[in-house]
């Protein structure tokens, strides 16, 4: 049943309990809510805004865990509701809904878990679910069904679409380009990898793991001797590797900026946790690009293009909310954000409208690991497959596929369903468990991946893609009992890591995870049968059972045919007499203007190892060129990072724009003394290019 606490005229806490609460429990709950009394009614009249019924919030997860710490048993969910006027409409329908009265049904959603479906017409299913499979891939799947002599399940088709999405497979980057009738000799990916071949410098691993590693210095680990019990700190020397990663989260940030940017940051941090056999994040970076913010009338460049009827949020809202989201995640996770960039832009010429209406939100960061843990091992038969982190909810179904498509192509229902939400505190616990393993004298992790796009499907299949594995569906943690098998294995609930570890080492991990309160689930085993299977041990149902070669075997060649368009843009006209006006205008453009609004809300010091962040001088204004983190507390060795981009220059001359982007990142980085000068530098490029227009 649901108990209510608080004031019906102000704020109500609804507590779902599965058994009769004792008077002592009620007193504890009342204390927890700030000495708010219990209201002895089964229903409350009035109007309230609160979380959508189907959505157990991360706030609830935390609140329920507090009650467990306070030795109160049997609490399932706690949500808060704000009393509002009947006419209230100022809330975000993505996250909240309005309730006319609160009753015993506010958490009920009346959805039965869908049975496993067998898909006979893959093309129709693809369309209905927005899976973004192309015709060649549909043919391929029809072929697989024929080969194995049965129709594929909904999970299998969905899973295939996730592991083979543009997001995960870079089909365009690996595709063939035919420009002006001439086939290019190299794919884009090959071209990019060529740079690392030509100038290998200190690269330890690149293009094959969740992060890239470069060689780092010998540094000092300052950590407790053991991680599975209270123990004393000690110093120990180790050979380091330095990690670098950047990932965009453009589509989710366009649709729901706070959670889009927060989960973008969270997902990118998980990548830096999942390098080699585990690695540790040090600091984050953030880049935002939107159309004009239209803050004030005094900016004539903002009125050249009419303001659009924005599909989701205004650029101003996106800037504020997205940076709030990215900041909140880092602040709570305990990762400082030490450098970044912002650009706003719109332009109309040649009957073509340009602008970052589909925004760019890039989360990046640096970290480190140990040289002797930098390369993953191959799982062996009998190894355990483990999930660390939170429960499965109906979140982000289909994000990987939808994010690679143009925004606005799918119905709003599908798009909203594809947005995730964040719980940085959960991720912190998981990260602490991994830290405990990495800092151990011997780290027994065999292999590790983060859960991102495609959920368990992508993560767990990647873990065993060389040997095969079987996952027990019943062991996957389910927070929402109405999830179908497809939804359990494919949802994008955040803050989870998958790892492989030998059976004999499970106890070590269990002790550390328990101590850190990181939920840990043994979900399956490495089989060596070259298949990837989800099976319910109870019902024997198999939502997914495919040979790895069938799952990963599709290699449709993407062919991009285009011709060169030589666009000339009008030159700027000006008079030197106006120079004082010009500087006053330029200084107001978001890209040039002060970024204090970003730095004043984001943690830039946590960990005590921030050696250089954005703000400088006696006035602490955000002007610094690069960010620098110390690798230990010894005051000498560290990691420097910076950002560069020049997309507007690239409109005039794409090659020059790319060179200018690299040059900008280098002229930002040059101010940190690097061990071997330019030879110490590694770059990571995130390409976002409109294709097939």
């Amino acid at each position, binding site marked *: 049943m649901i108990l209510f606490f608080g004031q019906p005229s102000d704020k109500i806490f609804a507590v779902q309990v599965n058994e009769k609460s004792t008077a002592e429990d009620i007193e504890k709950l009342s204390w927890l809510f700030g000495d708010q009394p219990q209201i002895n009614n089964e229903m409350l009249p009035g109007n309230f805004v609160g979380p959508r019924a189907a959505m157990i919030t991360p706030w609830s997860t935390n*609140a329920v865990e507090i009650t467990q710490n306070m030795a109160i048993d049997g609490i399932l969910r706690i949500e808060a509701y704000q009393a509002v006027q009947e006419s209230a409409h100022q809330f975000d329908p993505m996250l909240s809904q309005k309730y006319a009265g609160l009753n015993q049904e506010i958490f009920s959603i009346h959805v039965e878990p869908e049975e496993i479906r067998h898909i006979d017409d893959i093309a129709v299913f693809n369309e209905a679910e927005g899976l973004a499979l192309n015709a060649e891939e549909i043919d391929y799947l029809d072929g697989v069904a024929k080969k194995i002599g049965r129709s594929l399940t909904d999970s299998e088709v969905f899973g295939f679409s996730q592991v083979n999405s543009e997001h995960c497979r870079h089909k365009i980057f690996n595709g063939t380009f035919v420009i002006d009738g001439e086939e290019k000799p190299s794919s884009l990916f090959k071209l990019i990898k060529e740079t690392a071949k030509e100038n290998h410098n200190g690269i330890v691993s690149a293009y094959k793991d969740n992060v890239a590693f470069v060689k780092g210095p010998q540094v000092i680990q300052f950590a407790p001797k053991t991680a599975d019990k209270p123990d004393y700190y000690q110093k120990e020397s180790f050979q380091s590797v330095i990690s670098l990663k950047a990932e965009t989260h453009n589509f989710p940030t366009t649709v729901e900026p706070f959670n889009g940017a927060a989960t973008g940051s969270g997902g990118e941090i998980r990548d830096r946790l999942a390098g080699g056999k585990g690695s540790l994040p040090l600091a984050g970076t953030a880049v935002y690009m939107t159309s004009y913010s239209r803050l004030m009338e005094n900016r004539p460049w903002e009125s050249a293009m009419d303001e659009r009827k924005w599909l989701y949020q205004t650029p101003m809202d996106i800037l504020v909310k997205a940076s709030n989201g990215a900041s909140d995640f880092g602040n709570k996770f305990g990762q400082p954000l030490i450098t970044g960039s912002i*650009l706003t832009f719109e332009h109309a010429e040649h009957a073509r409208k340009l602008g970052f209406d589909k925004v760019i939100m*890039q989360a990046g960061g640096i970290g480190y690991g140990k040289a002797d843990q930098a390369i993953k091992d191959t799982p062996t038969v009998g190894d355990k497959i483990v999930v660390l982190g939170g429960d499965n909810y109906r979140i982000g179904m289909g994000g990987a596929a939808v994010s690679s498509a143009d925004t606005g192509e799918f119905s709003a229902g599908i798009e909203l369903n594809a947005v995730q939400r964040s719980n940085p505190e959960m991720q912190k616990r998981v990260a602490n468990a991994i830290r405990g393993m990495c800092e151990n004298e011997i780290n027994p992790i065999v292999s590790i991946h983060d859960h991102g796009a495609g959920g368990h499907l992508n993560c767990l299949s990647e873990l065993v893609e060389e040997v095969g594995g079987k996952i027990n569906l019943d062991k996957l943690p389910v927070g929402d009992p109405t999830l179908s098998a497809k939804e359990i294995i494919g949802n994008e609930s955040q803050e989870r890591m998958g790892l492989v570890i030998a059976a004999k080492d499970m106890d070590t991990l269990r002790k550390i995870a328990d101590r850190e309160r990181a939920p840990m689930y043994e979900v399956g085993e490495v089989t060596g049968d070259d298949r990837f299977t989800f099976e319910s041990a109870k019902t024997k149902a198999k939502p997914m059972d495919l040979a790895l070669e069938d799952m990963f075997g599709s290699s449709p060649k993407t062919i991009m045919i285009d011709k060169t368009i030589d666009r000339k843009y009008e030159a700027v006209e000006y008079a030197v007499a106006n120079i004082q006006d010009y500087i006053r205008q*330029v200084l107001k453009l978001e890209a040039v203007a002060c970024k204090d609004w970003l730095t004043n809300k984001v943690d830039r010091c946590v960990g005590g190892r921030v050696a250089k962040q954005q703000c400088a*001088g006696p006035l602490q204004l955000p002007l610094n060129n690069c960010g620098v983190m110390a690798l230990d507390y010894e*005051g000498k060795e560290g990691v420097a990072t910076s950002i560069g981009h020049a997309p507007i220059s690239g409109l005039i001359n794409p090659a020059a724009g790319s060179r200018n982007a690299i*040059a900008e990142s280098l002229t930002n980085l040059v101010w*940190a003394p*690097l061990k071997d000068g330019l030879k110490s530098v590694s770059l990571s490029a995130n390409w976002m290019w409109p294709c097939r227009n």
Partner: protein
Amino acid sequence: MKQKYPNEDVISPGTVVISSVGNCDDISKVVEPVLKKDGGPIYYINLSADAFHLGGSSFAQTQNKIGATTPDIKEPLAFAKTFDLIQSLIKDEMILAGHDVASGGLITTLLEMCFADNGLGAKLDMNSLAEEDTVKMLFAENCGIVIQAKHESIEAIFEANDISFHHLGEVVEGDEVQILNGTESHTFNIPELRDVWFETSYLLDQKQTANNLATARFNNYKNQSLKYTFPSHFDGKLPVIDSSKPRPKAAILREKGSNSEREMANAMYLAGFDVKDVHMTDLISGRETLEDIQFIGAVGGFSNSDVLGSAKGWAGAFRYNEKARTTLENFFKREDVLSVGICNGCQLFLELDLINPEHTKKSKMDYNDSHKHESNFTSVKIQKNNSVMLSSLEGTTLGVWISHGEGKFALPLAEDQYNIVGKYGYAEYPANPNGSDYNAAMICSPDGRHLATMPHIERSTFQWNWAYYVDGRKDEVSPWLEAFVNARKWLVTKGIDAVVEAED
């Protein structure tokens, strides 16, 4: 990468974002874009090796143009050579300030190098650039850098390495940047243009900050210059610990969601403690009893995400768990122990009423007046106080990190009922980030043994992790480490067998 509307499409420009990384092997030598009043000349180096072009510039953007031609990087090898030369000059401490030329062009770079301090100006002659078109020269975004050298002798090094450079002029005290080009003379007023530059930030800040504090920030940012008074006895040396003697025992106390245990542990360790890592699960299960511990530090972070109030859940775990509660109560009953709560730990101490249990009206931590997270390197003035950790720093003003959402001390009694150990260097927002009663930043128990501080003294223990330090010093530790050393010394006087510092 396009947005589809019912009647049109808007295309995002093709964009590549470059992230760079490198092993910085001397983190104390990173150059900042802040000119030094008593430093050497200002130089410009054009790394594009290209003529000035306005295409793709922020200036073009403000005129609603993309522009016809864009600068490029014409000589990558020369670029690489200059990069490495600048690196070696930085390592040799020949460069006092430096900034890249990017968004906003050369004029923006020059102005920005004067923004971060008051009274900074420059007198510059651009004639050696041989660009008659001053607008083009100042607003083109040709890749380049501006440096302030320690001394003119840098010119011989540039020449010897065949690097083309331009001596632009000197730093002057004042409020103006003056630029000469041909017969033209342009004067730019720094305080005024700094406010223009701040305006966009202020407008966005208004959308995220409560109680009109964005306006207060806009008005105050330039009037809250960081000024320090260091302790006269401070020598900047790392404490020397006699490794043949046992160290007294400290513990850091953390909960799920804590994130500041390492820096607290390190401050204690450097001060000569043996530091134990203690999680709430250790106390709840009873495997840790704190019986051999003399000093505990409750660390910062977001325990339980701070839902239902900062540190509320953490306090609940103490209040309603038999073993954890008994362990804590027993610790605080002892008269030979010390404690410190920082940030979330400070919030925990107030929620558990550990600082002033004798008060009938309880103190508590409230949301910042701005109703947002505040992150800032600010300063704290240490008051006359009896805190074991901080009384020796009385009268000093020191730089310190703050980072919190609920840091406002709500102190219901008269000021003299509290031991306010530290107050913010300026009482107004944002130097005082939260609107605390009596401008309080740190308070301690009546006997001075238990300290609760919102500022992160444990994240501000080194010269290199202060965001702004005093010029010309090379300290191994900042004055804040003394607080932890004082804790050790006090415990030694209490007869705890422990180290005697080699220096004592």
